[in-house]
């Protein structure tokens, strides 16, 4: 195999593909590699960690077709060290590949390509639809951080992507909080549900382009096709809990506050939170304010009020401050609405005027 590529093309390709190579040690060595396939339909870079896999086309000249697998780490380091324009040539002979660019020549040991797994695609797709990459990314990235990190319940360690009627939504929860992002679509797409493991979702969303993407889903596998590549991922085949039940229907108190005020107050109060990261929130309807307080036996205590429009009953709730601050940075609106549904019951946080995103957090025991 002899191929010549533009440096920039190579850099970008290796950058996105190496994300999908296996990073853990102790697995099959070839999984930590990138396969370079130069065939009749151009040059493709391929990597997989048996959870997700990618096949990415890169532009380049093929002088001689062939296949080879090279360690992803080394390739990434080489690619990262490039500066300026120019081309890079890879020449495969025997057990080595010679990488030459400008005056530099390096010889790389190859990995056994015959061990490189195939990328599975959905066999009998139950759903097949096209969505813009930008929409898909905004859906999934706004919730994926709230999925559970424990693998005890695989369904909670996943992001739910589902379409119904004219809208598509992404949901993630770790059973302490839940985030839902819902976007209505102009074109109708068939109803479907898919559970993408949250770990895979993060890598996939970083890689997908903004252009239109075709998504195919079957029971166990999901795939994303775009003009220059394919991404495939294992799906979790379990039932997602019926989360709509826990979203409160009625609220006893509402508060609308400026986001930056609340964020700053929370940040200061959090310094005094105890080992459980507890921060107390008090809705004061008569005083038109929400007060935040925290105390720590070793540090001291602090309390602060944020004024805004507050209605309903006066109620006190305690939260893990990390769970309160997490969604704030992702909200585009200037003000936020906190809606409490009662003591010991969930509180809902939304950006004012933004109905697409809902964040629900459970309070701590008082």
């Amino acid at each position, binding site marked *: 195999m002899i191929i010549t590529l533009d440096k920039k093309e190579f850099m970008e390709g290796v950058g996105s593909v190496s994300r999908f190579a296996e990073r853990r040690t102790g697995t099959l060595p070839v999984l930590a590699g990138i396969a370079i396939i130069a065939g009749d339909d151009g040059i493709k870079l391929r990597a997989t960690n*048996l959870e997700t896999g990618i096949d990415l086309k890169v532009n380049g000249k093929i002088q001689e077709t062939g296949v080879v697998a090279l360690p992803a780490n080394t390739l990434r380091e080489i690619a990262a060290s490039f500066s300026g324009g120019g081309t890079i040539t890879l020449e495969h002979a025997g057990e080595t590949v010679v990488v030459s660019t400008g005056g530099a020549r390096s010889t790389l040991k190859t990995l056994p390509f015959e061990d490189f*797994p195939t990328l599975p695609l959905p066999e009998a797709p139950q759903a097949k639809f096209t969505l813009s990459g930008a929409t898909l990314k905004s859906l999934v990235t706004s919730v994926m951080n709230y999925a559970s990190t424990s693998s005890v319940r695989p369904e909670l360690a996943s992001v739910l992507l589902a379409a119904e009627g004219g809208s598509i939504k992404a949901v993630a929860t770790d059973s302490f909080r839940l985030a839902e992002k819902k976007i209505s679509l102009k074109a109708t797409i068939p109803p479907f549900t898919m559970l993408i493991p949250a770990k895979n979702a993060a890598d996939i969303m970083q890689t997908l382009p903004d252009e239109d993407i075709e998504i195919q889903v079957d029971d166990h596998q999901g795939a994303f096709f775009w003009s220059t590549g394919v991404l495939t991922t294992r799906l979790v*085949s379990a039932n997602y809990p019926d989360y709509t039940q826990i979203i409160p229907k009625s609220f006893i108190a509402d508060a609308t506050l400026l986001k930056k005020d609340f964020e700053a107050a929370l940040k200061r109060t959090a310094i005094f939170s105890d080992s459980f990261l507890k921060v107390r929130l008090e809705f004061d309807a008569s005083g038109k304010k929400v007060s935040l307080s925290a105390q720590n036996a070793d540090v001291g205590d602090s309390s602060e009020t944020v004024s805004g429009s507050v209605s309903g009953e006066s109620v006190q709730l305690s939260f893990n401050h990390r769970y309160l601050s997490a969604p704030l940075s992702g909200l585009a609106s200037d003000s936020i609405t906190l809606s409490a549904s009662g003591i010991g019951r969930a509180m809902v946080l939304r950006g004012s005027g933004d109905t697409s995103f809902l964040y629900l957090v459970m309070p701590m025991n008082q």
Partner: protein
Amino acid sequence: MNRLDARELWEYVLTQVELSISPANFNTWFRDSSIVKIEDGIVYIGVPSQFFRDWYLKKFNMLLLKIIRSVSHEYRNIEYTIVKDDRRRQPKEPRRTPQQTTEMPLDEFYINKSDNLNPRYTFDNFVIGAFNELAHTAAQTAIKRPGVTYNPLFIYGETGRGKTHLIQAIGNQFKKLYPTRKVFYLTSEKFGTDYTDSLQAGTANRFKEKYRQFDLIIMDDVQFLSKKEKMQEELFHLFNAFHDNNKQVIFSSDRAPVAIPDIADRLRGRFASGMTVDIGEPDSESRMAIVRKKAAIHGVTLSDEVVEHIATSVAGSIRELEGVINSVVCHTQVKGVPPDLAEVRQSLRSFARPQKTVSVKHVVSKVAEFYGIDEESIYEKTRRREVVRPRQVIMYILREDFSVSYPTIGSKLGGRDHTTVIHSCEKVKREVIDDTELAKEIQDIRTLLV
């Protein structure tokens, strides 16, 4: 075909596959797979995802077919199914709970650097019985008014009776009750090395400072200070400093202060000046309580008969008891269910002291060799002093260690009457308590016989 057969078949398949592919390949592709069911000659292999199914079909199908056909021609074909996440979890589920307890022990090794205390030792998991009630009460009293009521508190008892647990629990409790005060736990051996180190480094003053900053000092195994005069002196001064400032000191030892050999009298007196309390042999109820509690700590509930069997059949210290419980816990974690009585009996065999069926002749020759006398003279009817004593020792050992009957001992040792044997055994038994020389001799002989 039942499920067990499917599992056995898969295990066989794995052993065969392992031989024909590289370990990395084997670990990557076969770790999470299993045979789900066997139906109508079709073997259904469950794999975690489509990555696996595709690869199995491409690479391993022929190999697997060959292997299962070699087992039986009944198996016609292999199908690969992707196992649902919730179904895959199920076989692991019963194991998961005990597995969490395997995670826990990581904490057990965690020792707080600033005070050397092991947080695992608390009063909560300390089993109280008639044998250690007094020691426990003394500890509780001491902690209520540290430095005043019992200073020093001296706890002694044989190895494995829970001395360390008790004194560390005092330390941990003290820490909880008085967060601002400082505790330090150390063994006398550590004290010794610290002392010599500081002498070598020429920082003896810093050594004194270091210890005097604490409010409670707990020193384990002080008997090791015997014959170390300089260290005894240092401890004596340290103790005085503590005592004068009403700071609590706690000692433990494997014997009473008076019985610690080669220790300065002034220190011996100090040891005994506060409260001296011993921990005796645990009675059978306490042993059962201990077994139950230790197993419960590991999240394992044992049936009453198993608990009773362990408590009665494991002679010796609580430490040995703990060893047996650990093996039972391990068993539970591996198999998923607590062992029943038969299984416990089986595994206890490896813990039981080897059943010593040693010939009388062997004992006689060893003892004769030890005392440097002629073996034949033991059997003779002589009453020479140098022969009588070894003969009595032989009888005592045969009786105590090997449970040989009195008449048998008599007849084997030159046809003596069984009453003679009883007399000899009783005599040695009496003497061994006071005569440390004799006790040591018998101890040495025992090591020769093992």
